[in-house]
């Protein structure tokens, strides 16, 4: 398991100690969970979730949210200007 690559995909920064510990823990978890490989699933068809209940949304205009309520949670702003971190 390449923990560095995994951290990059997961957008997580870990210190060396954390990396070592998490790697060890995840390997132990997978070692225990590998028993599911022994289950015969040849009679089962793969589907991500059985969504027999699901229906399409109504073709109507979605409800409108109060703009102020939405942007109140923006981490950094000045009135209606939203400040994002530097791209470069």
């Amino acid at each position: 398991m390449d923990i560095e690559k995994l951290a990059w995909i997961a957008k997580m920064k870990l210190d060396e100690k954390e990396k070592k510990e998490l790697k060890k823990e995840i390997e132990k978890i997978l070692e225990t969970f590998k028993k599911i490989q022994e289950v015969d699933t040849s009679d089962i068809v793969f589907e991500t979730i059985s969504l027999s209940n699901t229906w399409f949304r109504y073709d109507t205009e979605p409800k409108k949210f109060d703009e102020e309520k939405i942007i109140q949670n923006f981490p950094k702003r000045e009135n209606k200007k939203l400040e994002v971190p530097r791209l470069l």
Partner: protein
Amino acid sequence: MFTKEIIEDARSDPINHFEKIRKNIERNENEVNSFITLLLDEAEKEIKQTKEGKLAYLLIAIKDNILVEGIKTTAGSKMLKNYIAPFDATVIKNIKKEGGIIIGKTNMDEFACGSDGTTSAFGPTRNPLDLEKVPGGSSSGSAAVLAAEFADLALGSDTGGSIRNPSAFCSIFGFKPTYGIVSRYGLIDMAMSLDQIGPMAKDTYGLALLMDVISGKDIYDPTTIRKPTKSFTEIIENFKDNNLKGKKVVYAREFLDYTEDKIKRKFFNVIDYLNSLGLEIIETSLPEIEYAVPTYYLVVPSEFASAMQRYDGLKYGYRKEVRDIWNTIMESRKVLGREVKRRIFLGTFITSREEFGKWYKKAVLVRLKIRKRLLELFKKYDYLVSPTMPVLPWRIGEIQDPLTMYQMDVLTVLANLVGIPSGSVPIAKSVGFQVMGNLKEDHKVLELMYTVEQKFSKFIKTN
């Protein structure tokens, strides 16, 4: 007090009722740590207004991963410590419409990742029945507020037992409805194919009352289904024990292999009682249970890692700004707790292109196999029962090993993997009896819970 007495007390003198609850909170909340946000001032204003509806003047505590407009919603995480919900979850809208008053947002394991209430960034919740012990999780605060009489009713969410586990440990009632009967719109998701919002109360009647209010089809959640035509409270009120005569109750011997002896004895007391009422008791074998925890803990992190991508400090949530956008995201996400990180890493790994077939796809196939097996079982039997938790509450901090903690969910994850309704009834201090039923047979599950309650749950009045 039980729910009907609570309703009488609240409606005859709402202010006095509120003051009693306030006193309980002021006296004991410091020790229990069951709320993240207390709304006493807001509730006091509300209680003075005229309220109408099924929940008029009742004080309701809400797990802190369910959005209440204008109120902080943290999901137990520092990542959302300043997040103000911009709208009401559908369940909240329904509660307000029926006159319910929100008393506070309850403590919980961070993003619902935990089984004992100790992973919250706001400190662990303590079990009001024994402050040294865990209250169970992840809806730890919602269970604790009822046990401590800080609220009349509560809402929790259940992905693998998060309502039933703390209900058992805190000796209250908890119910995970059929997947789709209650809208998840406005719930901060952990694993959307398993999550379900559900009621917690001091008795089955309280569960039924909340189910009447929160269940039903919602245009904002396309997985929701219509609510049953008959109300849940009506079913409970008209229920007689002999309605269940001849019903078939099955339990799996493998459930008991995981269970402590003391809990087993309590479980069999209930089984004997049900038998004496004329219900048919059948023992069966369910070897699939061995694979339930691994399957669950492979599916959950896969969905969770994806759901957690949105917490990057850019649009909302905690932001630690550094030199550029990429490092800002990485630094901001450092604030997440250890169990959350563990699940994100696990989920990211098993859904990677190289590992997907071996882990995620296999787990989904095993989940479908378990589902098929259980739904076949319900063609022959009416109920599947077990203890809710295999052990009694442990000391806070006693379990540190993630695998040991995951194994505590062994009896509760089945219901979520299959989507069936399941509830926990307290049968002794910190011991729950779990009832599972077929899809959309929530009312039947509540009927059996009510039967067990009549004989075994009176002790909670003297807690």
